[in-house]
């Protein structure tokens, strides 16, 4: 099986945990901090981002509250936090080039890093691996979400 399955062209790496409802992913690090970003599906729905503004370091968020605001020419909205915790780092590169999220949603386009306050319990509510792919496929097909298009230089 590929390490990077696709659903309608949208890449969903198996090693991440996903909030399918909010189109976000997290990568859990050895020190129990996490990196948070928007999924390929999310960047595709939003279109080419013009601005991405994460909350400041030190901001404490409950699950579901905005971690950032992002806007394209056709949409503006929040990136909702998949976990409760404190923002411990933000991706400063986004201030100069929000399209990093479009080009590299799972690497250079990360949004924030967090210190979760209830990682184990909240992680149980997310999906990873093939289960995540299957759940995302259900949503994409149920809502007939358009196929992902990738800009030049797109990377996984």
């Amino acid at each position, binding site marked *: 099986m590929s390490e990077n399955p696709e659903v309608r062209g949208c890449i969903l790496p198996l090693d991440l945990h996903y909030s399918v409802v909010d189109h976000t992913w997290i990568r859990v690090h050895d020190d129990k901090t996490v990196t948070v970003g928007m999924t390929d599906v999310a960047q595709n729905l939003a279109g080419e981002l013009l601005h991405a503004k994460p*909350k*400041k370091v030190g*901001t404490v968020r409950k699950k579901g509250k*905005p971690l950032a605001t992002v*806007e394209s020419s*056709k949409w503006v909205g929040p990136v909702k936090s998949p976990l409760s915790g404190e923002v411990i780092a933000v991706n400063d590169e986004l201030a100069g080039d929000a399209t990093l999220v479009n080009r590299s949603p799972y690497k250079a386009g990360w949004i924030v890093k967090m210190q979760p306050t209830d990682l184990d319990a909240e992680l149980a509510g997310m999906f990873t691996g093939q289960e995540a792919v299957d759940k995302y496929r259900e949503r994409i097909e149920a809502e007939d979400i358009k196929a992902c298009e990738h800009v030049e230089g797109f990377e996984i």
Partner: protein
Amino acid sequence: MTDDDFEDKKILVIQTHGIETPRRTYSPLFYAMAAAAMEMDVTVWFTMDGTSQLKKGEAEKVQLDPTSDVTLKTMLEQTQEAEVKLRVCQQSLALFDMSLDDVIDGVEILGATSIIDLSLNADHVMYF
């Protein structure tokens, strides 16, 4: 003022332009969504010609960019998904010979005194 200070601020957007001026319809809704994304309490008040945006079957006909599938209906739906409150002026509805049944779902009808209350209670009012 930090970002966090914006949270829970009340923004009132007053929209007086309707479907006959499509270019004046999208932006106020976009700003309302932006404020909602910043965790503000946002209300859009449709009055005068703005009322026509809310008539069933009309917003889907307004499409600024012919190459995009985004219509005014899309914008109104996204605004509601962002938990922006949509309100319409009862007196203006009468001008357009509209009733509650003619208005898209999720819109509350309020009278003129309510707009004064909303204005006085808002932290900022944006007029369009």
